[in-house]
């Protein structure tokens, strides 16, 4: 970590306190075997179920760069072999939605259209490869990391767990208005760093591992620190 001149960096009135996210998976006992039962399950599912198969999926696969972005898309493509529907479902970027309800409606719209376009009988999952709807109990846990300025932020970003990074950069968008995350909100409101806030909001977990995104985010913060110190 480079040494910086503290006086040149804006110090926040309130530090950014990092939390970690943990989740306990809960089986609902509900299954889908084809597109209509998947649609029915998504329509009826409580919000934590939609969360588990979208945000939970992205978090579980944080070291990989899977082709898909949610469990529904993966199952439709790999098990039902409905490639076109799977592709459309995979294109849904959960982190761009303001609420789980909006996210659910996108899945419902794609599946409803696919069912309308398909004449029965629908393709059925082989025995043992049904889709199992899961729920999640989410836990938020304090960590020892906090940031008062950009230097602290860059240092903490290198140390926090991937679950903490995911929570503050992506999942927290569900809690804020206008597509902001915890981190972009703090960068803008506490440090006045609008451009950095926009760069954080533009990060996309689809097709990239969280470790890659972490490196990119640290690079962005480091460059901003260098710019400030040059002035």
């Amino acid at each position, binding site marked *: 970590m480079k040494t910086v001149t503290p006086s040149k960096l804006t110090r926040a009135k309130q530090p950014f306190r990092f939390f970690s996210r943990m989740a306990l998976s*809960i*089986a609902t006992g509900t299954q889908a075997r084809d597109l209509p039962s998947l649609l029915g399950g998504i329509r009826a599912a409580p919000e934590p179920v939609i969360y588990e198969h979208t945000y939970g999926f992205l978090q579980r696969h944080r070291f990989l760069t*899977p082709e898909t972005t949610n469990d529904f898309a993966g199952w439709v493509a*790999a098990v039902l072999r409905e490639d076109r529907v799977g592709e459309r479902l995979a294109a849904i970027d959960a982190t761009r939605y303001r609420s789980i309800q909006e996210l659910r409606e996108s899945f419902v719209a794609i599946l409803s259209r696919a069912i309308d376009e398909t004449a029965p009988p629908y393709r059925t999952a082989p025995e043992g*490869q049904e889709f*199992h709807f899961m729920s999640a109990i989410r836990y938020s846990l304090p960590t020892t990391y906090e940031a008062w300025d950009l230097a602290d932020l860059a240092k903490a970003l290198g140390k926090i767990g991937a679950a903490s990074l995911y929570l503050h950069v992506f999942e927290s968008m569900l809690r804020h208005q206008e597509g902001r995350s915890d981190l972009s909100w703090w960068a803008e409101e506490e440090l006045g760093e609008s451009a950095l806030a926009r760069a954080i909001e533009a990060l996309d977990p689809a097709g990239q591992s969280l470790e890659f995104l972490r490196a990119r985010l640290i690079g962005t913060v480091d460059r901003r620190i260098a710019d400030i110190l040059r002035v």
Partner: protein
Amino acid sequence: MSRLREYAGIVGEQTIEEIETLATCLAGKTILNVNSTAVGGGVAEILNRMVPLLQELGIQASWDVIKGGEAFYAVTKKFHNALHGAKQDITPKDYHVYEETNDSNLEKLALDSDVVFIHDPQPAALVKKRQAQPNRWIWRCHIDISRPQAEAWEFLKPYVEKYDAAVVSSPAFAQKLAIPQVVIAPSIDPLSDKNRELDHSLARGIVEKLGIPLDKPLVTQVSRFDRLKDPLGVIEAFTQARRATDARLLLVGGPADDDPEGAQVYQEVLDRARNNPDIIIRALPPTSHLDINAIQRVSTIILQKSLREGFGLTVAEALWKGKPVIAGAVGGIPQQIIHQHSGILVHSVEGAAYWIKQLLNNPAYARKLGENGRERVRENFLLTRHLKEYLLAFIFCLRGAREEFVRL
């Protein structure tokens, strides 16, 4: 026995800190584990490692074993098979023996811990004592109960529903129940003899001592000689692949002395392999953990072409060693392997043959699968994740199992 801090180099300081912070929520709580055997089998193996780690974290964890006679274990073996889906003839006398043994253990066990954590069906009926207890009870089911024999499940289910929660290993093993079913996958211990890091030359030395030549790429399946592991299918797949590429096949498993069908399958495998010098068959003692570790590490590809599987932790063992794995898409294996990202899932002999050739001919792709597989195991199938989720499950039950979001 490994201590928690020793895992930091593998899973990161942050994971250890998270576990320690979680454990503060349970400081001083008493957790009693109860199962039916102190040695042998996966449950005892896990408890042997888990209980000391819980104690190290300041939780008063303990472990009791129920006592039963031969008749009881004969009955619970029948239950085990029936819950796995095999047709069993369970008589009224069998149910009586089960109830009677659980009743006699009820008199000896102090089941007043904050959390009573009962493992598997054998002691499940101990829950009948909970009427007088204000504490929390969790039933941990380590077996695949996705397609149980109805009669056995109907007998067990009323007991299970007296618990506060059940823990199953896979979403596919969940049943329709009136209580929450937490999904916690099993794990491997990266510091055990079977999985710890081995110097490559040491590994080669161990394997050569077993009489296994390493002059060609080694394609290996580690599993019991059991039809459900499809050893004959593995030989057929290798034979098809071998026409286009040069390699050896190694089938290695435990002895089959106590299993008449296993001995028969072993003989069939030997017969099928007899005239092929590129196929090696080895039966090793069940304590050969270091040998298995070495074999997996020197192999070029690992197969697990199962036709049915519980969770299939041999897959996690191989992935942890950074090996490309080709495995049947059954049981818990698809939880471990994302097809073409962290391994290869196959559905047929022909599919296995195709992918053996592909991976032997594309070492860079095979290496990438192995790297992804290792990270997937690091995140999802190591003992530390298992420990963390047990802590979360205890917290979940102690808080009343009602909340969807908890700020600790």
